[in-house]
């Protein structure tokens, strides 16, 4: 059940160019949130920008009731958000999304993330490691400058591989190719993916073709984030031109089994 919280900003850090990590005190959300959930933030009291900004949860510090999220400054809304000062209250609704990362029945999983899509995978990885699962991470970035959170992820994974499109850091190539190389010996039971849509399509294709369970965290423009406006539609796998059928990222997702969606 989502809550509206006016959460105090207690920690703020620019972890990369125009990419901010915020830590807010939000016990009510932290207590019930799960890996894969997201929050919706109202960045200003005015009406422009109008809508809330959906942002994934990076870390849940259950002990201290602190919720961490990371966002990139992309437009007017995130720009305003980035100017919030320590001590300011931020209007947050969460946790949102009934489709969360589900890993209870697996013991050996792989996470694969691209660019700013790696953020929601952190809490998943942390939780899975805490439950004594084996977690192998494959994180891809465009180039050296965009590599982030290597140390943080290395602390919550059994194995971490980093790659860049241009080879300027880590291995050269795409994360999915690194994962594919390991699959013979690793026999991952499930792959968890988040990143740019072209990357997710590649991961889905790979997982579906090789009959590996795969859960993808999707992104779509949202109106309400609550499952009311039905704006954030994504086609179901069954959907056809004659009989279209949709899920909604905010409610059915944001995490879906790759076999259930067509994006």
């Amino acid at each position, binding site marked *: *059940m*989502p809550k*509206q919280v006016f959460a105090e900003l207690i920690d703020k850090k620019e972890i990369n160019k125009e990419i901010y990590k915020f830590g807010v005190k939000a016990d009510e959300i932290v207590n019930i949130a799960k890996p894969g959930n997201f929050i919706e933030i*109202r960045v200003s009291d005015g*009406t*422009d*920008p*109008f*809508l*809330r900004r959906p942002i994934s949860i990076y870390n849940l510090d259950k002990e201290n009731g602190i919720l961490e999220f990371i966002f990139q400054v992309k437009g007017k809304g995130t720009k305003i958000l980035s100017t919030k000062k320590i001590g300011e209250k931020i*209007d947050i*609704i969460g946790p949102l999304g009934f489709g969360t990362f589900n890993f209870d029945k697996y013991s050996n999983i792989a996470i694969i993330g691209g660019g700013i899509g790696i953020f929601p995978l952190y809490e998943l990885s942390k939780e899975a490691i805490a439950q004594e699962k084996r977690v192998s991470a494959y994180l891809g970035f465009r180039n050296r400058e965009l590599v982030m959170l290597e140390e943080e992820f290395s602390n919550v994974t059994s194995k971490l591989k980093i790659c860049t499109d241009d080879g300027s850091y880590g291995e050269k190539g795409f994360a999915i190719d690194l994962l594919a190389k390991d699959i013979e010996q690793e026999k991952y039971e499930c792959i968890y993916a988040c990143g740019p849509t072209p990357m997710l399509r590649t991961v889905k294709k790979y997982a579906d073709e090789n009959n590996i369970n795969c859960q993808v965290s999707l992104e*779509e*423009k*949202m*109106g*309400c984030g*609550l*499952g*009311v*406006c*039905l*704006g*954030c*539609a*994504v*086609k179901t796998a069954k959907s056809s031109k004659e*009989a*279209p*059928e*949709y899920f909604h990222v905010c409610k059915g997702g944001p995490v879906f089994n790759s076999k259930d969606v067509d994006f």
Partner: protein
Amino acid sequence: MNTKINFAGIEMKNPVTVAAGTFSYGREFSEFFDLGKLGGVITKGTSLKPRSGSKPSRICETASGMLHSIGLQNPAIEYFAKYDLPNLRKFDTKIIVNACANSIEEYIELCKILDTLDIDGVELNLACTDTENRGLAFGNTYESARKVTSEVRKVLRKPLIAKLTPNVPDIASIAKGVEDGGADGVSLINTLLGMKIDIHTRKPALGNNTGGLSGPAIKPLAVRMVYQVSKAVNIPILGMGGIVSGDDAIEFMLAGATAISIGAGNFIDPYTSIKAIEGIEKYMERYDIENVSDIVGKVKIN
């Protein structure tokens, strides 16, 4: 202080309702507050058969507003009656079902069913900007609006409200059409047809290319239309279009609205409707207004 109003024969505890398509069937918002605080809930546009809705992208933000093309996705009347209505009925509020259809025959069939349900009224969606075919635009001329309203009137004994599109040259004449057709009230405005283009990809932001604009950006236009319609008809008006506060609500009532709806405002804050009720009460206190209905149409024209 008395906030009660009678809108189109529906007794409401206050003039604040929530607009079709911005509140679903109430479930999600009932997790935030008691829906019984609202004057009324207008349901998601509901049709005879389920609708899957428009292709994505369905939504995009604009200056002080949003464009959307949801395409009236809904589970249809049977599902509503079975699963959503019993839940909504738990709350002490009035239930108005927004009805949409593609033909007069379909409207009649749908309203025959609605007349048998435990609801308080029907809002006829005469032209939804949000859909691909714009609801076949029953609301585009005086005659088509009068015709569909009068046909529905024959089968519907419950309060009948016609929701008008602003995408017409003279909305007052359409309002006259539904009044002559036997409507008990009019609601306005539906969304304005708009478009947004991504200059980098050169593609429209919406999958349907165009869609309905809502939010505070359209408020001055909506207030003007409410005012014009109030001068043209004798049936009461449910005013909407960009209302996000009690002050906005008062403005619509001064222009001539008996009751108001919060639409896109529900998306930016789940408590917008509750805050609007509180804002109306504050205004009444400040100006020592005994009955909220006393301010309806009380704009002092220059």
